[in-house]
């Protein structure tokens, strides 16, 4: 498959680019932050996402979705990245929908239909400690009667405070599964955490939460595979977002290099800055390439895409990180002020890097896969 967008994907990108830049530019994030918005995103905007079909980009056409795949979702994530748009798109339309699609069955289909119509928000709860280490998970589900009892504590749950339904990863015997948990159920407490980037996250505590038998997405068997798929789609989507964050920070920086004068010259004339900008350009091109490759691989065979997904997240993290660091340094003092947007890109890049594994996590994962 050629590593360029198809004609249809290009059309989708143009539409997403125009729509998001128009409806939710960086000023939108600022407004939500400065008004201390309780939700942290705009429900009205999410309704418009649904009208555009974006909410259901992954949901099957039979459930009112667009029936598209990871590549198309990645196209939208990249535009979200360019505009730092706080949106349920990641947790609900991408990760949540992927988990449900992987699970299948009538219940999942009903939920996918509600996602597509913009009437259901999801949040996947995986992380527990400071870092993303799903292998070290301790949240425990125990069989109890016909159902389960859940205990544990989750952190960095994106959109956790706004979700209508939590998808909680937990150990079940010697495997893991993903459990649908009503955030209003007894024993569940959700605390919104205000994050550095003014995007949404929450901590979730589960204290003897009683669940029905059908709460386990993988029916106790396919849970690990469902979780892995959801995480991988999320990682690749996060890589796409980071590509957008990095590309936009870079575009603003090169524009600044062409307008700011120091010592009687445009600072873009200084060769030391030119070489750093040129190197950064290369890193961003590579991140774009591997992210598209990973999204295509997920579309083709999600169970085999793991290594490519790790590669994409690792490279996108590194490229975006370099992009925002160079952006702030090259902007000089004004880049340090809250009044200029560049700092917001740095904040978002940092948080998105931690999401579902940073550059080191994924480089380490690749090394382990290769046996060293």
């Amino acid at each position, binding site marked *: 498959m050629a590593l360029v967008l198809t004609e249809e994907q290009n059309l989708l990108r143009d539409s997403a680019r125009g729509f998001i830049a128009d409806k939710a530019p960086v000023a939108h994030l600022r407004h939500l932050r400065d008004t201390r918005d309780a939700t942290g995103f705009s429900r009205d905007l999410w309704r418009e996402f649904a009208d555009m079909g974006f909410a259901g980009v992954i949901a099957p056409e039979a459930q009112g979705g667009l029936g598209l795949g990871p590549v198309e979702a990645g196209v939208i994530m990249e535009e979200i990245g360019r505009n730092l748009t706080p949106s349920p798109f990641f947790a609900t339309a991408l990760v949540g929908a992927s988990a449900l699609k992987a699970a299948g069955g009538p219940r999942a289909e009903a939920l996918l239909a509600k996602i597509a119509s913009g009437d259901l928000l999801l949040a996947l709860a995986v*992380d527990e*400690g*400071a*870092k*993303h*280490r799903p292998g*070290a998970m301790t949240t425990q589900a125990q069989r109890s009667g016909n159902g389960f009892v859940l205990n544990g504590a989750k*952190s*960095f749950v994106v959109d956790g405070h706004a979700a209508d339904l939590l998808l909680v990863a937990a150990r079940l015997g010697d495997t893991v599964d993903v459990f649908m948990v009503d955030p209003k159920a007894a024993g569940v407490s959700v605390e919104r*955490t*205000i*994050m*550095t*980037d*003014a995007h949404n*996250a929450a901590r979730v505590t589960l204290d003897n939460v009683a669940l029905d038998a059908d709460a386990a997405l993988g029916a106790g068997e396919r849970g690990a595979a469902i979780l892995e798929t959801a995480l991988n789609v999320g990682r690749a989507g996060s890589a796409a977002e980071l590509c957008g964050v990095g590309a936009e920070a870079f575009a603003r920086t090169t524009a600044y290099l062409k307008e*700011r004068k*120091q*010592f*009687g010259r445009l600072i873009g004339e*200084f060769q*030391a*800055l030119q070489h750093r900008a040129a190197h950064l350009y290369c890193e961003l091109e590579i991140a774009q390439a591997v992210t598209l490759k990973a999204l295509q691989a997920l579309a083709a065979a999600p169970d085999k895409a793991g290594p490519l997904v790790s590669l994409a997240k690792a490279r996108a993290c590194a490229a975006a990180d370099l992009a925002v*660091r160079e952006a*702030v*340094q090259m902007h*000089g*003092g*004004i*880049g*340090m*002020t*809250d*009044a200029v947007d560049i*700092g*917001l890109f*740095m*904040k978002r890049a*940092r*948080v998105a890097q*931690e999401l579902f594994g*940073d550059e*080191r*996590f994924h*480089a*380490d994962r690749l090394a382990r896969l290769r046996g060293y």
Partner: protein
Amino acid sequence: MDQLDAFRAETRAWLEANCPAEMRKPFEDEEAERCWGGRNFKFFSEAQRVWLERMAARGWTAPDWPSDYGGGGLSKAQTIVLRQEMRALGCRSPLDSFGIWMLGPALLKYGSEAQKREHLPRIVRGEIRWCQGYSEPGAGSDLASLQTKAEDKGDHFLVNGQKVWTSYADKADWIFCLVRTDFQAKKHEGISFLLFDMTTPGVTTRPILLISGKSPFCETFFDDVKVPKDNLVGVENKGWEIAKYLLTHERDMIGGMGLVGGGRSLGEIAAQSIGLENGMLADPILRGDIARLEADTWAFQIAMERAGDLAKAKQAHPAYSSFLKYYGTELNKRRHELTMSALGADGLEWEGARSQDGEAARAWLRTKANSIEGGTSEVQLNIIAKRILDLPGA
């Protein structure tokens, strides 16, 4: 050496007798408890007031300034002894002051006798708080391209323009300020160094919000501010020399930043946050990055020590501080990047008690200015290339 030993004993006895117990404890809330002095300063405690008063009476807030101007009149060796003894007893600094750190040295070197007598004793006593008016929005690294205008109106200068990055301008009583007094001259040759009261009509300030949150920095605006001619320091249009003198001073101060922080080592922070596996940090690639950062930090500390020894031995290149400034600030940025990686999602919480209102994240973001303020890293590298390595070109 006997004399110095005697001084040491005497100093210790005096400190023990005069430094209030409360002033010997580590800060609990450093920002609130530091003493900056000035007209509007509210002492945090009676002990803080007494401690400043007693130290100022001996001139020990500026121990190596001449006693004629209220300073302690101590020799370099005695000043070091005083610092050592204060550290040994855990005494807090009685006064933090841009007047002592920056303006004083410039006035001692370039000020008139009248200016010294007017300003230095008040600085020593913490009566007047100063701020520094150097940077301007359009100038940045090219500091000398400043545009704030001071017109000669006979008995006074009329100042119009804008400064930026003026630390604590909203709290300061007076400002020392670079202005352009000759627009025809080459850019380094039309600059003058002025002092004026911040309550002079036409001076306004506005705090700057940084990406890390609240900051001491302000924008400062001058709208037809009248400054008496007597407040010119040194020679008109020769202010750049004074500015350069102070910039080198500042660079020395900032160079040590790679060391600031103290407390737990990054390895410990990471081990606590992430945990160990087979005795090694459970995030193996981060472990390597931290190992290198810690080695680099220790090595840089030793290089700082050597820089001091080279200076004492008169073997240091005059531009050596550019190396320390560049390397120390880049190292500090790297340290905070790795700290954020070690703390992971926990370190990204921006509000709330768990993260102490995002302390780590704000500190991380704040470090991004290290390599911009006080001469960018790029400027330091230019200086090293040209002045130390003698490479050709503009």
